[in-house]
């Protein structure tokens, strides 16, 4: 009996209730959002999903596609942060430079003369080669930065973040000087994916490009997962993360693995830039925007976890698209606020992010 009383008391403990509060709010908010979108949605563009399921599914697919794009750009940032505890503030600048390198490469291959090339005159190689060249160049740049500036101050988190900030300032200025004055330039997707496919559901014709981007996001995620959890290098990396000194004592060359991680993480920034620049464009100013996108993804998802980055990207992408589509038309300016409500809820509920380990 007294056991039971203690349990009841424990359950009614105010601090416990307080701790559960964020969970309650999150659940209530999600439930409300779901009901709103599915059945209610007055004064919105599309009306409730039950009346217009096609618009609902398009928004859903858009959310997933945008999440894939976010994940590709953020994965490099998440990788470097998760495995090396380096907040690479130059990620945005790597992205920027990578995007322009890919653009110049495609222009060179397809002889665009610095004009946008219609997708019909681009073949698969004219997209793949620029993406690879940009990734390798930026990977190499990242490697140099890591070897010269970040190798000798392991563990000094803030100092490393500051060093990458300084580097990002330099790169951003150099891009304006040497790459089309940093003005907006867009790549083209290969022509054969630039079409619609019939999804055989609610009569939706959906862009194949967006499906390809989604697939690329999944592909990057799966490859990273295989690499980290199914290969020897990945094992060493994880060992190095868990106990740096023990790993090196066991004869593991931790510096080498860190170098590899930085190469891959930087290369992913450039690959992400190639995708984003093909979907839209690359231009100065985007460096900051995409660094912050990556940051939000990583903070929501949980720092230092690939799954976290996936979850963070999905939540961010879905909330972003649904808020823009399912707010009353007079209030769409508040769409961005919902991304932040999401952030606040996650951080209030799990300060380490959805999949993060407690710091």
């Amino acid at each position: 009996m007294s056991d039971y009383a203690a349990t009841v008391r424990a359950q009614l403990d105010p601090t416990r209730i307080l701790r559960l509060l964020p969970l309650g709010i999150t659940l209530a908010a999600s439930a409300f959002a779901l009901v709103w979108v599915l059945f209610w949605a007055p004064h919105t563009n599309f009306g409730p999903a039950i009346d217009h399921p096609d618009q609902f599914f398009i928004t859903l697919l858009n959310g997933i596609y945008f999440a894939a794009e976010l994940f590709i750009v953020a994965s490099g940032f998440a990788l470097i942060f998760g495995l090396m505890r380096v907040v690479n503030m130059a990620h945005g600048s790597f992205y920027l430079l990578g995007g322009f390198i890919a653009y110049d490469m495609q222009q060179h291959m397809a002889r665009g003369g610095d004009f946008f090339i219609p997708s019909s005159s681009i073949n698969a190689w004219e997209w793949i080669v620029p993406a690879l060249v940009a990734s390798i160049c930026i990977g190499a740049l990242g490697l140099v930065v890591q070897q010269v500036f970040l190798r000798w101050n392991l563990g000094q988190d803030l100092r490393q973040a500051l060093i990458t900030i300084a580097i990002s300032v330099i790169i951003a200025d150099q891009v304006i000087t040497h790459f089309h004055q940093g003005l907006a330039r867009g790549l083209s997707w290969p022509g054969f994916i630039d079409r619609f496919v019939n999804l055989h559901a609610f009569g939706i014709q959906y862009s194949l490009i967006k499906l390809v981007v989604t697939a690329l996001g999944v592909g990057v995620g799966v490859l990273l997962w295989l690499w980290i959890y199914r290969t020897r290098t990945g094992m060493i990396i994880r060992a190095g993360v868990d106990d740096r000194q023990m790993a090196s004592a066991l004869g593991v060359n931790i510096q080498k693995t860190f170098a590899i991680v930085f190469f891959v993480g930087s290369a992913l920034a450039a690959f992400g830039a190639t995708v984003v620049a093909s979907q839209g464009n690359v231009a100065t100013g985007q460096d900051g925007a995409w660094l912050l996108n990556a940051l939000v993804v990583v903070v929501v998802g949980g720092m230092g976890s690939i799954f976290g980055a996936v979850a963070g990207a999905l939540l961010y992408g879905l909330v972003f698209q649904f808020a823009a589509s399912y707010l009353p038309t007079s209030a769409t300016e508040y769409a961005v606020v919902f991304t932040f409500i999401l952030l606040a809820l996650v951080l209030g509920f799990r300060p380490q992010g959805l999949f993060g380990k407690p710091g």
Partner: protein
Amino acid sequence: MRSLGTFQSRKQATERTAAGTMLVLLAIWPLVFSSNSYWVGYILTQTFAVGIAAASLIFLSAYGGMVSLAQVALYGICGLVLGNLVTSGQAKGLHLGWSPWLAVAAAVGITTAIALLFGAIASRSAGIYFLMITLTFGVIANTFFGSVTTFGGFSGIAGIDTYTPGLVGNHVTQPARLYYIAFTVAIIVYLLIRYIVRTPFGIALQGVRDEPVRMRSLGYNVPLHRTLAFGLAGFMASLAGVLYAWSIGVVAPGTLDLASTVDLLVIAVIGGLARIEGAWLGAFVFFAIQTYVRNVSVPVLGGSFNTIIGFIFLAIVIISPNGLMGLWDMITRYAFGDRGGGSSEPFRELRRIVSDAWFRLKGGAPTRTQSRSETL
């Protein structure tokens, strides 16, 4: 033992003299050099104002172990709230036309409340996580004000400098007034921080910084201490926001964007994250660089002065992670002969790099990894 004591006292004496001279110089500056209004009206006033924000960052970092990137967001929020409340007529935003002092009080109050909220959310994180979460707060504030047109939108709110209290007057015609007000507020904030860190709260905060687990087991509420410290820093940042709005006259989402956030961090780092005085030193050096490093061409690379600023910052971070105040500590140690601490940080670092490279060249010696305590 004796030599250490001498070292401390001599260093202290030197610093006191330097600080005294500096204060006197600054106090008479507008009287002596009043003709050059740019220094009074911009560089120094901005140094005091932005230095306060930097001091709030350094306060959190040095005594709470929290490096916050939300301080710019907080002073920007304060400026935008002030702008919405105080302007009237055709101004953008809400243009409520409140009386200036009331608006200032409300803006500082609202900002402090937001800071407490931010602090409560972030208080359970530490280290680099804290940095990232607070940066996220900055992003939230920037995007919120950038996209919600009700509060001024992307263009922000201009003309705030024409709605100042009588005490401040017209910043353009009487720049010295705002100069002295900013100077006074800066000194008050400095003394406030010095006072707080000696109170039981401040001492407990430093305990939380060094040994959070032990403090918790001693019965201290660790998140609460962090939250309160953050709220306090938010209060200081909001003072900076008011001064900024009065002196610049316009506050916009651009005031609290990523570039500005990084700028404040740069200021704090140039000054040195370990000592409060560094905030104003860093701010001064930053504004001086911004102003005077201009018509320089960059050899080989090309590019504008931004490249140079990047390199200067890079050099400071690499050579002296504790900024100019750290450099000062190093110089005094060297000059007054305190060899107890061994050779100074950058030299040790440099020597390590060189010897490391040497071993690698000779093809021997496995790479040593060295787990070092966080110095920043």
